[in-house]
């Protein structure tokens, strides 16, 4: 059976056609390989970016009912009646750094005018989503730590840390 098929295939191809197909096939495989290697090369394996975990210092740095922007890390540390929590300060529209407007009591983005409440809820666009909450905990030294890579549910009991 197998031999019969092989014979059929062989009879359709001339030697020249066979080698043309073989050559084009090899080149195609090489091209796909080159594309794959190029893609891998362009994607950095090690990033020298700051750690997602930020040490925000002792909790008593943040008075009750205060909103503190950490400009370098792009987060807010907020001390509310329910406890401490952290919001991303990066606008969900196009990634600008938002600012805390104390006189208005809102968080506003200077780029395209999005506005947020201090719990992250969107007041007005163009931002499509609320500011995400970030995981907060107190380490053994009593410092507030924030993991910027982990979102937690807004206003959930576990999303606050109490001292």
């Amino acid at each position: 059976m197998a031999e019969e098929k092989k014979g059929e295939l062989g009879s359709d191809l001339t030697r020249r056609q066979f080698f043309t197909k073989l050559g084009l096939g090899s080149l195609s495989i090489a091209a796909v390989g080159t594309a794959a290697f190029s893609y891998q090369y362009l994607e950095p394996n090690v990033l020298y970016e700051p750690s997602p975990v930020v040490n925000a210092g002792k909790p008593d740095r943040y008075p009750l009912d205060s909103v503190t922007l950490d400009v370098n890390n792009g987060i807010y540390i907020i001390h509310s009646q329910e406890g401490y929590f952290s919001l991303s300060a990066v606008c969900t529209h196009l990634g600008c750094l938002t600012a805390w407007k104390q006189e208005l009591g809102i968080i506003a983005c200077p780029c395209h005018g999005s506005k947020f409440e201090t719990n992250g809820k969107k007041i007005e666009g163009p931002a499509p989503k609320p500011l995400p909450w970030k995981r907060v905990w107190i380490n053994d030294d009593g410092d507030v730590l924030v993991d910027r890579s982990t979102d937690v549910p807004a206003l959930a009991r576990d999303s606050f840390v109490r001292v």
Partner: protein
Amino acid sequence: MAKTVDQYFDELQQTRVWRSIFRSGTGSSTLKRALAIQQNVFLHLFSTKVRTRMLSFSATWYLGTLTLGTFLILVATGIPLMLYYHPSAPQAYADTKDLQFVVSSGMFLRNLHRWSAHAMVFLVFAHMFKVFYRGAYRTPREFNWVIGVVLLLITLLLSYTGYLLPWDQLAYWAITVGSNIASAVPVIGDKIHFLLLGGHAVNANALLRFYVLHCMILPLTAMFFVAIHFWRIRKDGGLYNHDSEPATIRAKNGRTSSGKEAK
């Protein structure tokens, strides 16, 4: 009898060295003049013959040529700017300041580069409008229109990548916003964002990537497509002039030069 400058030039053109470089020889016969274009590596991209009417300002407003002119200014000013600019996060902003205030003629070169870049974007659009409203994009020139659209995209990408290089607040946030727009592409958006910046945010990797794109990859790609663009002008029958179009094509495109419907 004293020789005139022209006579010296004629003699120069007869020398063996001159003739070894310029193969077509001298003389002003139609053939010789055609050969001078056809046998030159740069000029052979163009038509050997052009209608005088098409060389008048009103025919094209010289918009394509002016675009090439701004591109050449950008290359000529960009290369010297590269000699003082380090594409690294600690140095880029200081180098830009130095170019502006310390380097001799640095401010002139930088401003010339900047204004030419603005002019080039404007001219590319003006060129496209002119081509569009003259109907010069139609058969058999459709493909050259497509090449033109590619060149528009390259022009915009050159502007965009150059924007980051001063490494100031404006640059940083403009690229942050622009690269986040790229993330909006369905499915692969975040991947494009990551590959473009070489990371998750605008940082040293992004600066270097944008520098390489701005100074190497995009200009070379632009030159490649510009060469095809010019060559296609010749291959598609020279600069578009409605009255000299073959009757079949004129009928197909459906309008006469006076704007009336073709019979």
